[in-house]
């Protein structure tokens, strides 16, 4: 019994830090509507700076002062980030801020390694809380008890801040209706900056307070950000009390899940999140989101099919790409194949995200399912490659059919979070069901047959499939179905009023996108010769999002161009520099600030300007060519 009590208290102690970070994220989202991916990075910097400060200054004052000072320093960095970066992109397309903060995260990951080195750093124990309390023969670290008390105290302070101060009233008002707050003459700039500072302060404090419990390392940002997203979504976006309750819930699930359901411990949290989202989409303590006002900067650039000249150009690009094996070596061809596969992956997400307005944060699930589908068929059933390639993606199709049905009941951020939860569930299954999936060791030896084994042959195969998939999806964009899908994105009210069943249309689109991603995954399994849980992982899902956003979410060709640029740059940077994340992150941030419409969006604007300045009739070159490389 005592053991369980201790386990419970450990859970509560973990909840404190999680709550701090989650409340920060929640406040920032509530007011600025920015899904701050860099929140985990701020948490991590907080831990690193606190480590340095507490090492330098001795004594109790040195430790506690260092912790607070670290949080303040990171808050200052946060203010800088908000003023320099985020202020420029508040009016960018939805989720574009996500890309910017993701770029920041990448940069920070390399920067901390640069400054503090790649090794885990074990910090000092907290002065005054070094020992442990004996509880019926079980030890409870006294620092844990401190954290257990700290959580509710911070909750109380935040509550007072929001209920009793003018600033708090403004924050609550802005969370409900920020346009109205702006219309009432509140200086939004400083409100947003201050909110961001407070949110980042909380994240950094959460990180700094972790040092006596855990080692500081350079991958702690990704782990926390996923958990924090879960907490915020379960609790309800914008609700502090919700963040607290959900933090406790998630921490206890983690603490007891490992005891009671060791086989599915990782899934448990995501399972709970999925159930909460399905039953109460706005979270336990959140309120249903009011219908958002139309973004003033809404694209008024209607899509159109390629003109025949553009088609010829695209075909020419494809032919050039197909001639690569004549000049390039094996390495370049393997890279080319990988890029082609990621084009498939990116266009599949683009179809869902740009055409359907449904930004999936877990699209890798269907990519990975396609890969596992191939691995199962090839290794267990021993089927020939062609059959595997045709049937493997069906696993992605089935996954998308099941998960998509629930996901399309929601929209916006909640849709994103539910897809993330589903992807994590699939990942956990692949990771923990060792007897079938091989767990972390994956499934090895999925090699292509002789006809496709040489790099050039495989490259042609990948290129050909990528071209077909791109063309097929493009046809669908301009098909009646594609228009119906866009109609549901543009106006749910109007599409329902002209007889369109939005959920069915979106579900169909989800299945199409999932199956297509599965095709990419199937090829990927053969390219790598193996399948791992990482093929379904979050970082791969984020890659897909970045590719679409980088290319331009409001454009038709954004997926293709984004995938080529991002993947090529990524692979090239890794081969050129140890600081590839720093450079790539910097590049992404630059794109976000300078070209908030993405690469293709920017080219379209340039073309439009040229068209306006030149006499009418000479407006052939409008869109960038679309190759299928």
């Amino acid at each position, binding site marked *: 019994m005592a053991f369980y009590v201790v386990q419970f208290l450990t859970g509560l102690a973990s909840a404190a830090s999680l709550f701090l970070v989650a409340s920060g994220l929640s406040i920032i989202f509530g007011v600025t509507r920015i899904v701050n991916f860099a929140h985990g990075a701020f948490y991590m910097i907080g831990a690193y700076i606190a480590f340095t400060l507490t090492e330098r200054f001795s004594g109790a004052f040195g430790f506690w002062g260092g912790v607070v000072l670290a949080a303040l320093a990171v808050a200052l960095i946060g203010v800088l980030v908000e003023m320099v970066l985020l202020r420029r992109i508040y009016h960018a397309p939805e989720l574009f801020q996500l890309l910017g903060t993701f770029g920041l995260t990448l940069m920070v990951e390399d920067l901390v390694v640069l400054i503090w080195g790649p090794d885990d750093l074990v910090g000092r124990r907290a002065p005054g809380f070094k020992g442990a309390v004996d509880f019926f023969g079980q030890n409870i670290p006294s620092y844990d008890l401190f954290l257990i008390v700290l959580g509710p105290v911070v909750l109380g302070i935040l509550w007072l801040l929001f209920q009793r101060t003018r600033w708090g009233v403004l924050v609550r008002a802005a969370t409900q209706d920020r346009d109205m707050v702006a219309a009432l003459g509140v200086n939004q700039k400083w409100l947003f900056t201050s909110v961001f500072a407070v949110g980042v302060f909380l994240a950094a404090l959460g990180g700094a307070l972790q040092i006596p419990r855990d080692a500081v390392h350079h991958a702690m940002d990704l782990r926390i950000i996923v958990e924090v997203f879960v907490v915020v979504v379960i609790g309800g976006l914008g609700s502090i009390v919700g963040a607290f309750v959900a933090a406790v819930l998630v921490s206890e699930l983690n603490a007891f899940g490992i005891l009671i359901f060791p086989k599915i411990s990782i899934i448990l949290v995501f399972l709970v999140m999925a159930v909460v989202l399905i039953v109460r989409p706005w979270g336990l303590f959140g309120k249903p989101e009011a219908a958002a006002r139309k973004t003033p900067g809404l694209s008024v650039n209607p899509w159109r099919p390629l003109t025949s000249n553009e088609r010829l150009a695209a075909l020419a690009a494809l032919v050039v790409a197909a001639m690569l094996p004549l000049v390039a070596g094996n390495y370049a061809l393997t890279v080319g194949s990988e890029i082609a596969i990621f084009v498939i992956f990116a266009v599949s997400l683009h179809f869902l995200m740009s055409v359907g307005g449904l930004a999936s944060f877990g699209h890798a699930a269907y990519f990975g399912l396609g890969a596992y589908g191939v691995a199962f068929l090839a290794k267990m059933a021993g089927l020939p490659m062609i059959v595997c390639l045709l049937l493997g993606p069906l696993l992605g199709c089935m996954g998308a059919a099941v998960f998509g049905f629930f996901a399309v009941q929601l929209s916006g951020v909640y849709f994103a979070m539910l897809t993330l939860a589903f992807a994590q569930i699939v990942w956990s299954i692949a990771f923990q069901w060792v007897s079938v999936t091989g767990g972390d060791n994956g499934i090895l030896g999925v090699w292509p047959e002789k006809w496709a084994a040489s790099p050039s042959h495989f490259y042609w195969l990948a290129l050909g499939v990528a071209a077909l998939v791109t063309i097929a999806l493009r046809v669908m964009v301009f098909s009646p179905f594609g228009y119906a899908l866009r109609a549901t994105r543009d106006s749910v009210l109007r599409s329902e*009023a002209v007889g369109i*069943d939005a959920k069915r249309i979106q579900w169909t689109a989800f299945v199409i996108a999932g199956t297509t991603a599965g095709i990419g995954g199937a090829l990927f399994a053969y390219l790598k010769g193996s399948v791992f849980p990482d093929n379904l992982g979050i970082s791969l899902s984020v890659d897909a999002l970045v590719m679409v956003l980088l290319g331009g979410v409001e454009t038709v060709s954004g997926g293709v161009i984004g995938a080529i640029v991002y993947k090529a740059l990524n692979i090239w940077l890794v081969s050129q520099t140890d600081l590839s994340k720093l450079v790539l992150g910097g590049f992404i941030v630059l794109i976000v600030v300078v070209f908030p419409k993405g690469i293709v969006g920017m080219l379209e604007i340039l073309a439009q300007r040229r068209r306006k300045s030149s006499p009418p009739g000479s407006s052939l070159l409008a869109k960038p060519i679309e190759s299928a490389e």
Partner: protein
Amino acid sequence: MSVASPLLEVEGLTKSYGGIHAVRGVSFSLRSGEILALIGPNGAGKSTCFDMLNGQNRPDAGHVRLLGEETTGKKPREIWRLGVGRTFQITATFATMTVRENVQVALISHGKQLFNLWGSAPRFDRGEAVRLLELVGMAGYADRPCGELAYGDLKRLELAVALANEPKLLLMDEPTAGMAPRERVELMRLTAQIAKEKSIGVLFTEHDMDVVFEHADRIIVLNRGTLIAEGSPAEVRGNPQVQAIYLGEGLLYEGGHREGASA
């Protein structure tokens, strides 16, 4: 059209939000080709009543029948399939499409081609789309992005979209709200003309009494959720209760212009 089977029959429609009775036992009917105005002061329950007719809102009690078929509790899209066109108080259009494409989406839906993955939507029934746009005087704007239209044009586009499924009944919630006075009169004249030609029944709510008295064949008046008067424009105008509501609250003749008012 025969009087035997009315186009729309509403019986004892009731809806309350918490303790507030938004609509209480409202009954009326509408014949084909008839233009019926639903008027009443702010908060009378007009929009609630409207939303229940096309299925956006579920009544607590009462029945709505369209051509004899019970439509109570049906979804808006199902009611649309039965032949009901709808325009909104605040326009709802597809902002990233061109004007013609907006109409084409409705035509695609009407033609049951929503799950057609291979055809070309921009070429779908182009002629009919242009014809509908011509009908509302928007053909010149066919290739313009819908997002850059002026508000009055959006209202006309909505009318074209609402006509795409060859409706028997048009539901127009404040069709002229937010339009310039001249545009208002034009839009309603156009609607009335189309309705007469195609024998479409029209139910509309409106605050502009000039519009109401010029075009309505019949008027029903709602106040605090109940129907207090029904009859020809002249009858309603003479109704002391209606006068009390409007003149007492000073809502009548808000614009002061009377160019179109019937004698």
